[in-house]
């Protein structure tokens, strides 16, 4: 079989074929293929606006709204800690002018998206794996396929798009509540302790500092990062679920793998996206020099 196909191809074709085989035999390559197939299936012949939008909205609701309470608490506490620490430490060291910059880097640029993605991977990614994995065990996925219903379109696509949208919305909510509710909590902490930490904080000061420190790229990455992270989480979750052999004990294993590997991929993707900033820094440094 392989020899026959080799004869048909030219030299360059053979090289590409070998490269494709190499990539598709790897797990990462298969996940990318699953992502592309899920995304392309959105435009397939059997699309229907009503059903699709309903499925996607349901998935967005499931991923986003139900996680909001815990996300709000985490964001508020995280924001409080960052605001208090940054302002007291930086004030002591005499770096008053970079307070906004540090807060933008910590909350909006780096840790906000990552913490949101971790929360969503832990809750929605794991439940997506368990749910599709259960369907695989009960041969419901097989039944879908024998009816001509593409499981990738029916199960993976709404999860993927809904997950990306929900992660985007949740990321914005995380940053907003970290700064706004964090500010309120800081004020409460100041009032309760009788300003033992000796902090002079006003909303005007905080908001102008942060808004001044935001650059155009920050706004772009506010959109790009969560969408990338959301796609990674849901694709990985569905990939792990679809590969479960017909054994019920493999489901918890797959759930664990799904969460841990999502964490890993998210951090890798974050480093990869941050390369953009590094290049930006180098340009600015060379300008100064």
């Amino acid at each position, binding site marked *: *079989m*392989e020899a026959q*196909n080799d004869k048909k191809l030219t030299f360059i074709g053979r090289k590409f*074929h070998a490269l*494709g*085989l190499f990539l*598709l035999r790897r797990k990462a390559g*298969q996940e990318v*293929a*699953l992502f592309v*197939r899920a995304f392309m299936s959105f435009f397939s012949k*059997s699309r*229907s606006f009503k*059903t699709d939008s309903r499925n996607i909205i349901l998935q967005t609701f499931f991923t986003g709204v139900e996680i909001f309470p815990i996300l709000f608490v985490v964001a508020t506490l995280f924001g409080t800690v960052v605001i208090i620490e940054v302002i007291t430490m930086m004030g002591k060291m005499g770096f008053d002018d970079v307070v906004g910059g540090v807060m933008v880097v910590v909350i909006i640029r780096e840790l906000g998206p990552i913490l949101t993605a971790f929360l969503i991977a832990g809750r929605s990614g794991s439940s997506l794996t368990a749910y599709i994995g259960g*369907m*695989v065990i*009960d*041969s*419901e*996925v*097989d*039944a*879908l*396929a*024998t*009816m*001509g*219903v*593409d*499981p*990738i379109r*029916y199960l993976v696509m709404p999860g993927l798009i809904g997950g990306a949208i929900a992660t985007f919305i949740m990321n914005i909510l995380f940053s907003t509540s970290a700064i706004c509710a964090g500010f309120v909590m800081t004020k409460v902490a100041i009032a309760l302790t009788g300003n033992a930490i000796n902090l002079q904080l006003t909303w005007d000061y905080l908001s102008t500092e942060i808004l001044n420190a935001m650059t155009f790229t920050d706004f772009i990455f506010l959109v790009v990062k969560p969408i990338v992270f959301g796609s990674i989480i849901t694709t990985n979750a*569905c*990939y792990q679920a*679809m*590969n*479960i*052999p*017909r054994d019920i004990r493999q489901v918890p294993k797959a759930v664990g793998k799904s969460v841990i590997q999502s964490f890993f991929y998210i951090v890798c993707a974050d480093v990869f996206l941050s390369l953009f900033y590094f290049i930006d820094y180098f340009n600015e440094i060379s300008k100064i020099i």
Partner: protein
Amino acid sequence: MFDEALRLDDIHLSYRGLVGTAFSKPRALGFFESGLQLGEQELISGANLVVKKGETLCIGGGSGQGKSALLRVIAGLARPTAGKIYVFGEYIPPERLTALEIAKRQVGLVFQNGALISNLRVKDNIALPLRYHKKGSPAEIEEKVKMAMDLMRVRDYADMFPHVLSVGMQKRVAIARSWAMGPQLLLMDEPTAGLDNYNRRNLLPLIDNMRTLFKTTIIIVTHDLMVAKELGCKITFLTKKTLTPPQYFDDWLHGDTEISKELFRDLRNSG
């Protein structure tokens, strides 16, 4: 060749082909094939089968012989290590042998456990493939769903979830779901297991109706050899990893082969 519904040509299947589902692994390239690996056990080796259009065929055999696995191969869910499959006279190359491709050619499969989608109500379960493939307007689909539910007499349970139904009921819903799609070739895995005598007796005329009215080709995997007698169809047995030539019930009953002595002993004694 053109009046054939299904032709299996020298099918080999190893246990590896039965592991998991294959949806997340890209199969567009047919190059993942690697034949039989050293020391691997085969479940089916060299099975041949020809089913004519409109014919009904029963596949029998002891448990653990791979009857259901053979059905999964035909439905495209399990991948044979070697062999050719023709559906309605069309050769399906290994790289396109997926359940979706087979389902496009109007092949339906009724699973042994029904395999209903557990978060959908009975009527939505039946309507799901119709809605997905956009077979008619919403009113037409509803009409068809009602008809299917009436046929299998599950209409009283239309608003229930599958997990509150009994196994036999789930199976009836699954048959209704397959019927609603109007398949040309229907594969049934143990349709009568778990059904009481009353429902079993009602199911058989339904199968009979389907083949006379809609000219559906039906392949039934069953332990219940009386099904074949009542439907008057041929039986083939899966023994020693291969399929025997199909024969009618009476020929098996009075035959002189090892199979007929083994499997028809009780039936012979009881007369």
